[in-house]
């Protein structure tokens, strides 16, 4: 179910609960109001009954007939009141109790009427009056008391129901939102993990975690993006290589000019001085031509090797030889930029199990970046040495260029991140990162603005047993 629907349903449930409570509270309030209205009337009636009983007592004491008239007035007053307030009384105490009250009042009225007729009060009549009066007063008192108690009970129970409902709604809201948010958070964590691994160049998928809600759609989308990225990575590596090749070709063309010039000058001199040259000189001249041709052949071969699209093909390699080969490709670019290069390769390094061309690509990339970041007269330092743990080789490319500002440093290996403005694709370092990761190696950067940048590549040493796993 979609998260949106879940939220709607949970809100509807809570809303319905609140409406129910509101309805209940409204009903209770109405009941309380009715009861209170009755209690008000009852108080009034009770006061009348009390006055009747007082007049009754006066009559017993002084045999004054006017007291009886007062009682009769009161009776007719209360009868009228009861009749008039019938509408309010019935809902409060019910028709039975009202009828009962009316009949008690009626019998009291009969006794009083009887008493008015006799000239003198006798004991039997007095007892009758007292009994009827008492009965009336007591019944009236008892229903008033009962109604007061009921009002009290209703208010108390309403209060406790309201308190309970408050906690119940709060608890249900908390529980529902906890479940929903936990699910969202769990999915988001999975997504976060995946995107992080994608940004590191591992194009994984989220497996066995499928929901049919919005997060499920997001996960599906990310999974297909990851697949697409994995599919394109090879293309990116190749296109980046071609981009580097463009930079290299210009340099290499210049690089070839020197041996070409040498051959040309040898040929011109040979032709001009042919007669004067000794046999030994002629052989030496041709030897030089051959050596210069070999120089050109090597440069061209390096360039061709570099440009060839190839699947990763790791072999046991001497890293220093790979660095040297790379330098023939980039030396010219370094020289043109008037940057002083120091190369310090540690001898006797263990062999590495690497794809020569991919590592060359990384080195070309790092050197190109260094040269572009370093002003004329700057320094470039390229070194290889055994790693700290003795089981890896560290390759360092260090420049005295402008450096990378600290806020960019965490992003330089991100795809499409570039500080070169229009000039950069932002892929060079991310491709390099991917290549080194595929070699189970590490690439680190250390940079200080205005001082320079150092890239360190750490590649694991070659162990015979690994060949099957890596190959």
């Amino acid at each position, binding site marked *: 179910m979609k998260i949106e629907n879940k939220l709607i349903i949970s809100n509807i449930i809570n809303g319905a609960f609140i409406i129910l409570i509101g309805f209940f509270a409204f009903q209770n309030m109405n009941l309380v109001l009715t009861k209170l209205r009755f209690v008000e009337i009852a108080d009034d009636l009770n006061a009348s009954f009390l006055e009747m009983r007082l007049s009754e007592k006066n009559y017993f004491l002084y045999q004054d007939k006017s007291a009886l008239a007062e009682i009769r007035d009161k009776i007719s007053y209360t009868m009228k009141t009861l009749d008039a307030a019938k509408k309010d009384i019935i809902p409060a105490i019910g028709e039975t109790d009202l009828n009962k009250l009316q009949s008690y009042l009626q019998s009291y009225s009969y006794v009083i009427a009887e008493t008015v007729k006799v000239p003198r009060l006798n004991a039997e009549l007095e007892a009758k009056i007292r009994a009827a009066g008492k009965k009336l007063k007591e019944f009236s008192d008892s229903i008033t008391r009962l109604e007061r108690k009921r009002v009290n009970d209703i208010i108390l129970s309403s209060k406790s129901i309201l308190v309970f409902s408050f906690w119940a709604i709060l608890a249900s809201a908390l529980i529902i939102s906890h479940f929903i948010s936990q699910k969202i958070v769990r999915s988001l964590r999975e997504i976060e993990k995946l995107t992080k691994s994608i940004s590191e160049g591992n194009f994984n998928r989220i497996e066995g975690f499928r929901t049919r809600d919005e997060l499920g759609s997001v996960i599906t989308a990310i999974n297909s993006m990851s697949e697409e990225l994995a599919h394109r990575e090879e293309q990116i590596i190749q296109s980046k290589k071609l981009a580097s090749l463009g930079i290299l070709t210009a340099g290499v063309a*210049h690089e070839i*000019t*020197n041996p*070409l*010039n*040498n*051959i*040309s*000058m*040898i040929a*011109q*001199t040979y032709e*001009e*001085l042919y007669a*004067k040259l000794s046999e030994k000189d002629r052989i030496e001249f041709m030897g*030089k031509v051959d050596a*210069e041709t070999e120089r050109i052949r090597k440069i061209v071969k390096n360039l061709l090797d570099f440009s060839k699209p190839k699947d990763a093909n790791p072999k046991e390699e001497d890293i220093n030889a790979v660095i040297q080969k790379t330098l023939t490709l980039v030396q010219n670019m370094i*020289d*043109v930029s*008037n940057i002083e290069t120091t190369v310090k390769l540690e001898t006797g390094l263990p062999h590495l199990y690497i794809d020569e061309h991919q590592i060359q690509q990384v080195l070309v990339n790092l050197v190109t970046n260094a040269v572009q970041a370093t002003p004329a007269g700057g320094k470039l330092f390229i070194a290889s040495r055994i790693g700290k743990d003795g089981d890896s080789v560290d390759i360092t490319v260090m420049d005295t260029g402008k450096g990378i500002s600290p806020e960019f440093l965490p992003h330089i290996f991100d795809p499409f991140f570039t500080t070169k403005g229009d000039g950069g694709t932002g892929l060079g370092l991310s491709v390099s990162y991917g290549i080194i990761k595929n070699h189970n190696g590490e690439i680190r950067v250390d940079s200080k603005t205005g001082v320079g940048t150092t890239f360190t590549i750490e590649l694991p040493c070659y162990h015979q047993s690994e060949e099957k796993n890596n190959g």
Partner: protein
Amino acid sequence: MDKYSIMVIDDEKIVGDMAKMSLEQEGYDVETFLNAEPALARLKEKKFQVVVTDYKMKGIDGMEVLRIVKKEYPATTVIMITAFANLDAAIEALRGDVHDFFPKPVKIKELKESIRRALDKV
């Protein structure tokens, strides 16, 4: 008449060797150097009519040689050769009062012709 002295500075050894062989045929006194520092030191000891220098060299480059020679020895002619035949370099060299500017591969005949014209002015 004293022999004219010509200095050739190029970090490619073959350039110096071939230029020396060829130019000595013309009766010039030729000295070759693989970089600028010893060449500039030699200029202090001996007068050269022509300095042929590579444009791109490690340490002191051809442009710097041109500046120093034109400042210290204004009578000496400078000819520049380069593997980086770009317009900016040529313009910069011409502003520095270079006598001639040759892209590699150098035609030795043209180089000789250029040296000859330079020496005619002396």
